[in-house]
């Protein structure tokens, strides 16, 4: 089988991989901000809930989480499709790691900034939204970008719960054709190409976040 014949099924898989990545990165970002802000600035109960979520998902294997959601959860009640399961597990995972990035960047904003905001009579919530987060956001973008790329690569694990992503198609093709070298080489290249696109998007986002903030930090 030639490279051109291998490409269509691999591209079909890459499309699923891209969809998984976009959906789970987006939902994961929402979770990361919610849990990170909650753990960094919330009341005692809110902090505890956020900490439990973050530590459970950081402390267990993504593959086992996928298996648990796909095979164990239906036995306890709700059954969700493989794609939804994949998005859910990936989102919860990147959300947990991202939450620590968000929390760390919030805590890194200097105490002097909080004091200046108190002296100007900003409320707690106003301090967070007007003073702290706008300063924390540019600092958290590079590590969040890393997590997004990590997330893209982690999507390969969903092939284990029957989702026909890029890795799934690659394994299928290899079983059919035994063209191991071209198949896995093409697969690597496709992941790499998607990672490049994702990194470019994250850099664009990073620049966008800095606009309206202080000019070039020298």
């Amino acid at each position, binding site marked *: 089988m030639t490279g051109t014949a291998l490409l269509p099924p691999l591209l079909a898989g890459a499309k699923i991989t891209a969809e998984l990545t976009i959906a789970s990165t987006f939902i994961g970002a929402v979770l990361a901000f919610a849990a990170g802000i909650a753990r960094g600035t919330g009341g005692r109960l809110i902090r505890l809930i956020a900490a439990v979520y973050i530590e459970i998902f950081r402390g267990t294997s993504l593959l086992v989480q996928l298996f648990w959601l796909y095979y164990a959860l239906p036995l306890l009640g709700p059954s969700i499709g493989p794609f939804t399961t994949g998005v859910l597990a990936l989102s919860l995972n990147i959300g947990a790691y991202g939450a620590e990035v968000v929390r760390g960047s919030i805590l890194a904003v200097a105490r002097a900034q909080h004091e200046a905001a108190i002296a*100007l009579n900003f409320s707690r919530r106003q301090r967070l939204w007007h003073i702290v987060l706008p300063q924390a956001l540019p600092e958290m973008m590079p590590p969040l970008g890393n997590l997004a790329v990590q997330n893209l690569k982690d999507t390969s694990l969903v092939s284990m719960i029957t989702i026909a992503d890029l890795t799934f198609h690659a394994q299928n093709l290899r079983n059919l054709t035994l063209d191991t070298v071209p198949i896995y080489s093409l697969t690597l290249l496709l992941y790499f190409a998607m990672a490049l696109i994702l990194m470019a998007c994250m850099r664009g986002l990073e620049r966008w976040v800095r606009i309206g903030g202080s000019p070039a930090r020298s």
Partner: protein
Amino acid sequence: MTDTQDPIIKFSDVTKRFGDLVVLDHFDFEVNLGEKVALIGPSGSGKSTVLRILMTLETIQEGQIELDGIPYREPGGHGPFHASAKHLHNIRSRVGMVFQGFNLFPHMSVLRNITEAPVVVLGLSKREAKERAMQLLEMVGLADKADAFPTQLSGGQKQRVAIARALAMRPRVMLFDEPTSALDPELVGEVQEVIRGLAHEHDLTMLLVTHEMRFAREIADRVCFFDKGRIVEQGPPAEVMVNPQEERTQNFLAPYLADRQAGV
């Protein structure tokens, strides 16, 4: 200088500790409306802590504080300040503070640094807030820097913006916590100039923590010499700074008095 009976600021038997360290020791202190008070004394003597307590940046362990007749603690109040968020908001609305390190918001332009709190906290329209900010920038001599960012300013300019920012909230009491200590010597004058101008405001009560003795003498109605969490000696600068009675004050002021005698 003062024409009222009731003090605007009143500390009664206040004790403040950081762990085992006693920073204010059964401290009593009153300031009248419109009075300009300089707090001087060695580092760690509690002068800055007085300002930070007034700004509700520090809690106290014992005693009472009143501002404009409002006690800092509410009966049955919760939290480290024994007061609700609403009560703290009420107190903070009367006080403005200028910090040694300027503490401008680096992600905002000079103009936005000044308009943000009036818009967000006081609910002024953007236009009103901008007008108010431009007047203040004019006053501190930085109207041409409205669109600059803090990183593009010198230390003296930053501190002048910080003063304008605090004034934009129209506080009744202004606290200056070593406002020129972080500045290069050649930039001290421009900041002192602005503070000197404010000292002419009849109704504005000012507390100034400073190591600049000459400046303290110049603008203060009263000088308070702090040592070990208490006021050791206080009075008009012409008395305390020229002819101090207490030995600790004499020792502290010795270099300044020597300079004066030498005519420096």
